[in-house]
């Protein structure tokens, strides 16, 4: 029988029932709305890069609470460390020192990356270990070198802090619970998007949004093959790649640190050794130092290192500057304000 006929007869059943007993129907479950295939298919994919969409709709009350929690040391087990201690507000939510040194914690093994546009990264952390923000946060909170806490402990600490109970009650029907602490933080992370970079405006047709030098930098960026990896809306963040393709990155360095193993740390698959998530280059000019180990202090240095290890070529200073000029146009605005 055809589907349409079934639907029709089904409706009739429903009507008959309703007439017979005047019983109401319960609404079906509303699934998380997903991007429509059709609209995605219609996108012009002839450019390797695309403009960042406007910020996704978030629950503002939750996000505001999440921002407070992001800066709140009471979330950690010993109430000494906050997320913001490594992800500095004035530095693109990244750490300006190569490795983070927080009082009461061992020095980190990786450079704290920017939190902006994390929602557009298909994996979280340098090694691409986590596939969702929630999974990442769950581990981070438990990690003895980071938060050394649990959601329950964090929630308990917050109970005794002034104002949180009221704020949570205002934002969540069930008030301050471990689940809601996590939900607020995730919502804040989701809100951290930076659209309207000059380059986005350029892509959307505003020809003078970026300088001629930046335009030529973009051409070089494409020509040298950077866009093989740094592509998509995030200018990276949508794939994994080995660090050191044409030249070994770790040859002349101490590459034996667990943090240098990349995805291998998780999978123990030899193929994944030194494989990292390709980082998003959005706001890259504001988030020095560079690479997982924070070993490069300047953008130009990072561009040259990438050309050397990934593309096998030494870039001229001129080309490097052009590309840096292009990368500078990727600095967006958070909630309408420049970073």
């Amino acid at each position: 029988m055809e589907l349409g006929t079934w639907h029709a007869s089904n409706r009739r059943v429903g009507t008959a029932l309703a007439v017979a007993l005047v019983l109401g129907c319960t609404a079906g479950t509303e699934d998380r709305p997903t991007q429509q295939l059709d609209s995605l298919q219609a996108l012009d994919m002839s450019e390797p890069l695309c403009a960042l969409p406007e910020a996704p709709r978030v629950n503002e009350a939750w996000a505001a609470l999440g921002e407070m929690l992001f800066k709140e040391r009471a979330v950690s087990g010993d109430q000494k460390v906050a997320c913001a201690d490594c992800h500095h507000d004035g530095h693109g939510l990244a750490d300006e020192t190569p490795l983070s040194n927080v009082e009461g914690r061992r020095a980190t093994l990786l450079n704290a990356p920017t939190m902006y546009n994390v929602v557009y990264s298909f994996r979280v952390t340098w090694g691409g270990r986590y596939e969702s923000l929630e999974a990442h946060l769950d581990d981070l909170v438990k990690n003895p070198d980071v938060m050394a806490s649990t959601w329950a402990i964090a929630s308990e600490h917050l109970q005794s802090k002034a104002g949180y109970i009221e704020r949570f009650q205002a934002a969540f029907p069930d008030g301050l619970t471990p689940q809601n602490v996590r939900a607020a933080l995730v919502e804040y992370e989701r809100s951290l998007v930076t659209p309207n970079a000059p380059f986005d405006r350029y892509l959307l047709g505003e020809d003078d949004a970026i300088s001629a030098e930046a335009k030529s930098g973009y051409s070089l960026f494409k020509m040298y093959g950077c866009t093989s990896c740094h592509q998509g809306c995030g200018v990276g963040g949508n794939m994994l790649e080995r660090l050191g393709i044409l030249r070994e990155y770790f040859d002349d360095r101490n590459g034996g640190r667990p943090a240098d193993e990349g995805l291998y740390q998780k999978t123990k698959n030899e193929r994944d050794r030194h494989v990292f998530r390709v980082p998003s280059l959005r706001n890259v000019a504001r988030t020095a130092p560079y690479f997982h180990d924070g070993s490069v202090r300047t953008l130009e240095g990072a561009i040259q290192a990438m050309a050397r290890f990934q593309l096998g070529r030494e870039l001229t200073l001129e080309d490097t500057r052009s590309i840096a000029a292009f990368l500078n146009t990727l600095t967006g605005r958070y909630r309408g304000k420049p970073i």
Partner: protein
Amino acid sequence: MSGRRVLHFVLLAAVLALLGLSAFSVFFGVRPDEQVQYSDKVRRVQALDTWLNEAVLRSRSGLLLNYDPLVFAVRETSNIHRALSKVPSFVAAEGKQALLEQIEASAASAQEKAAFVEEFKTENSVLRTSLHYFPMLIARFGEGSSEPALRPLAGLAHALGSAVMLFEATGDSEARRRVEVASRTLEAASRGTEARAVRSDIELATRHASILLERKPKVDGLVRRILSAPTSVRARKLDLLYRELEAGALSEAVLRREWLLGLLLGIVIFGLMEIILAMRRTARVRERLAGELERAHTSLAKEHERERQTSAARSRFLAMTSHEIRTPLTAIGSSAELLESFGQKWDSERRLDHVRRIREASRSMERMLEDVLIIGRADAGGLSLAPTPISLNTFCQELVEALMQRTQNTHAIQFSFQGDTSVSLDERLLLHVLGNLLNNAIKYSASGSTVWFSVHALTEQCEFVVADQGIGIPNEHLPSLYVSYCRAKNAEHLPGTGLGLAVVKSAVDAQGGTIALATELGRGTTFRVLIPRQRAEREIWNAS
């Protein structure tokens, strides 16, 4: 169980079944929104799979320059599988298990494919970077180049570039060999040059060429694996299974609907039947009550009539006694007074006459009292039968003689007797019957007329017939003929208690006999009494 209770039971069962079915439909029935959303998701698994394949092919060919669509397709596929594991409530437990297994299989193959896609992204990026390099190499070694060190190598660089392009286009072993040869030749030629930058360029070119040789088969292999992954087959199987379950659930829903309508119809019909039956029952009850009311009315009227009669009898009794007792009492009183005053002077004949008057009056009172007593006893049901052997002929003759003596032969009594004279009868009751009948015959007929008294002793019963030529009984009096103290209009001027025929009737009844009469006003009356003979007593008589 009565029909009514069965009906109620059926009605209750039908209503319960209706409620049960409806509840089932509400909780486990097919909800259109749920069904549409779920089937849409099931179909989307296939659509996404196709779309992922297309995106991979476009990425490989360079038509698609970023992986965002691939990331989206992979993530969306995983999300949909997660959402699918929340099976709609209309899928039964058995089907749910099978469906979950299919979803699991589909998700597993999708995940496997996603791993290949991930590897493809990584490898394809490297391949594309290397492919990117060769146009730049050719440009650098091109004719327009001003560096003298490059000129001898330009041809070789071109050869490598074209070999690489051929290999990328065909991928066969001949093309591979050409790349290897061109690469080796270029490398060998570069050893002769002094320029370090040129050597480094050549080194990079050969490195990219070797990457290309290594990665192209790898990437193409990954593309093949992605395209041949069993995801589409699994998704199709899942779709088929779900359609099957959906169709099953929908046909069940239709069946349930039919049941519901059937039950509803049944309830309506049974309800109507119940109403009709209830109306009928009410009508029957009303009818019965009306009957009862009427009967009550009738019995009340009867009771009333009896009461009236009793009251009438009482007043008649009082009237009779006031008259009938005073007359003999006056006679006795006056005779006794005369005897007291003149007894000494009167001759014996005259004295005797007054004594006789007193005796006659007292006898009359005695008879009257006896009649009253008999009626009283008969009314109380205490008139017992005590038969004794008697000579019926003698008994009747003595009765006639006594009567004639008392009436001083005013009437002629024609007595006849037939049959067996030795019978067993209650003498006293018989006397009441015959005495009263004969008395009446004389009392209500003119002097000088004849009274017939015939007795016929038959085998089974005795027949007594008393006929006169008297005044007769009016028809209107016949119904109350045997009622005590009742007298016919044409007899009211004659002395009498109104007890005679009542006594006769009671005495006949007490002996189990019957009484009948024929009468004509002014011509006379004939009574016929039949009294059964007492068999046992007769036998005793015969034996003695």
